């Protein structure tokens, strides 16, 4: 048994879904294989669109792509809401990154200079000014950065909206695991599902998140170097009498680990996230939850009064340089959209546009050139001494 399409997307997380939606919009017959479309890391992610507060030394190239995607969000959210009838919880609330002691303050000052040197908008506030904006912050706050351009979206609603938009655009969902890539001659020709069904396609997009490196049948030299990086996240609820509690995303580095609190309009408060290199393990641990709540409590003592709703662990798809792999591989017919690591939700709009462009023209647009998967095949042949 065999079914055919122009484009077959392997993986129904937000990256696979946006790729399928955009491809179908361009008139390509598109199918997507995933046992549970709309699942994946987006079910855990907090949904910070933090191009500015997540800036790191040496990642200026990635910053360009992050900013390009952040700029597209308002229009993207409006279009997707129109196409699906779902509200995405897109909120232009801004972010406040604060320091809790003199060491954190020095670190944040350094981030501020890097942000300014990169031409980004970010304002330094005294501890008192921070607490005037967010009265729930701990009295010990020593200063902070106000970044109004770092917004948020609810990744679960984003995933649901993308599933509906795909269905309405005519994407065919095969609700089953892909087991193996089918290569005919020297060309990717489709995938074989776990029940033996073959789905053939002119072009195959591998968008399996952290699982992307594991699909059987992909030749070694084009297998994406993606590893799982575990993140545990806690969800609390802000009861109505406490609202708004926090009016924007609040984050800090506490004893060397990142903690953030993302308040949704519907009262959900997401506290994240650990970062653990523990393979495929998705266990929620006492230590992970303890660390998150302890750090969040240092930042916003009042969280102890909030109802505890959920804990969950997900796997970020990490690449060697923390940047995504977008576009054609050395194997004709096989493209990648994976390795988005900490920025999957943020990079969803630009990934959809880039992949749609490649699938229809065969060319990577300029903005995506630095993120071609081929950058790693070059590095692999050049053995370090």
């Amino acid at each position, binding site marked *: 048994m065999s079914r055919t399409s122009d484009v077959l997307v392997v993986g129904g997380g937000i990256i696979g879904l946006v790729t399928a939606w955009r491809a179908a919009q361009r008139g390509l017959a598109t199918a997507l294989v995933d046992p549970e479309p709309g699942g994946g890391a987006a079910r855990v992610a907090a949904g910070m669109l933090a191009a500015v507060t997540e800036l*790191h*030394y*040496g*990642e200026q190239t990635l910053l360009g792509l992050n900013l390009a995607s952040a700029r597209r969000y308002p229009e993207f959210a409006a279009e997707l809401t129109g196409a699906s009838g779902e509200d995405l919880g897109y909120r232009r609330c801004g972010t406040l990154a604060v320091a809790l002691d003199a060491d954190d303050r020095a670190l944040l000052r350094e981030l501020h200079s890097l942000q300014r040197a990169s031409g980004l908008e970010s304002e330094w506030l005294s501890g008192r000014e921070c607490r005037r904006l967010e009265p729930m912050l701990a009295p010990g706050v020593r200063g902070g950065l106000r970044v109004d351009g770092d917004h948020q979206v609810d990744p679960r609603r984003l995933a649901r909206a993308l599933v509906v938009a795909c269905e309405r655009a005519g994407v065919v969902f095969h609700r089953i695991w892909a087991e193996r890539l089918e290569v005919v001659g020297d060309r990717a020709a489709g995938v074989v599902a776990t029940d033996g069904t073959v789905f053939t396609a002119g072009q195959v997009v591998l968008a399996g998140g952290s699982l992307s*490196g594991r699909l059987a049948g992909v030749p070694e030299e084009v297998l994406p*170097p*993606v*590893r*799982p990086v575990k993140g545990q996240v806690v969800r609390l609820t802000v009861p109505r009498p406490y609202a708004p509690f926090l009016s924007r995303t609040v984050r800090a580095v506490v*004893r*060397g680990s990142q903690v953030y609190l993302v308040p949704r309009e519907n009262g959900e408060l997401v506290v994240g996230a650990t970062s*653990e*290199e*523990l*393979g*495929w*393990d998705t266990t929620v641990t006492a230590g992970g939850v303890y660390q998150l709540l302890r750090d969040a409590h240092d930042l916003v003592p009042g969280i102890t009064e909030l109802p505890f709703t959920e804990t969950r662990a997900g796997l970020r798809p*990490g690449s*060697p*340089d*923390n940047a995504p792999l977008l576009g054609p591989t050395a194997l004709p017919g096989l493209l990648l959209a994976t390795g988005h690591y900490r920025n999957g939700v943020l990079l969803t709009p630009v990934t959809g546009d880039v992949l749609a462009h490649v699938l229809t023209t065969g060319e990577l647009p300029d903005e995506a050139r630095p993120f071609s998967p081929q950058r790693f095949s070059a590095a692999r042949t050049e053995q*370090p*001494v």
Partner: protein
Amino acid sequence: MADDPFVLGGTSFSSRLIMGTGGAPSLDVLERALVASGTELTTVAMRRVDPGTQGSVLSVLDRLGIRVLPNTAGCFTAGEAVLTARLAREAFGTDLVKLEVIADERTLLPDPIELLDAAETLVDDGFTVLPYTNDDPVLARKLQDVGCAAIMPLGSPIGSGLGIRNPHNFQLIVEHARVPVILDAGAGTASDAALAMELGCAGVMLASAVTRAQEPVLMAEAMKHAVEAGRLARRAGRIPRRHFAEASSPAEGMARLDPERPAF
């Protein structure tokens, strides 16, 4: 340096720089920094890696041919540290363990009593134990007495970059040591690593100074040179410190260019 090997637990290394992996911005940067550092031995937190995962930090070490030194980071009791060390031996197939038993999360200073207790248990169990310790000469001697293969005193708290706060203690530890003494924690920049070697340390262990630098690869290369320079200086023997100057050029037989006009 071929004529000056660094022997640790029966294995000989030509690099005296031991690297850590914590805090690296990406695996790619970490890999290039490790190459630039020239290290042959690198610590990995047993509790923070999964030995089975492809594409992880362990794959990077494997590809570069760098030996793994498992550590017990994150342990607060001797019991936890012993258990973690045994899991590491199982997972990595090595008896080497960098023993860390931390007293509290604010300072990350070692708990000396738990540390000595764990060291004794692990040595008896056949491990090659490299303990991360306070810069306390008495504790250093006791760790050596229970059979540790090296002493790894801190220069200052982990990640602080404050350098060696008590060089005199380092001298005391080195003078009484029959095993290698390795600076562990506190190095912030190259001069800290060079100073450790000048004081007689056999090696330097660091992570944050490189991984959290603005340009980790450059700092890794700087550290490599600093360790080499400090070691050479130690072997060469420094000159005594003097209160007044002593001219380095001979004063006798100086040419008198113009007897009518003094040079200055």
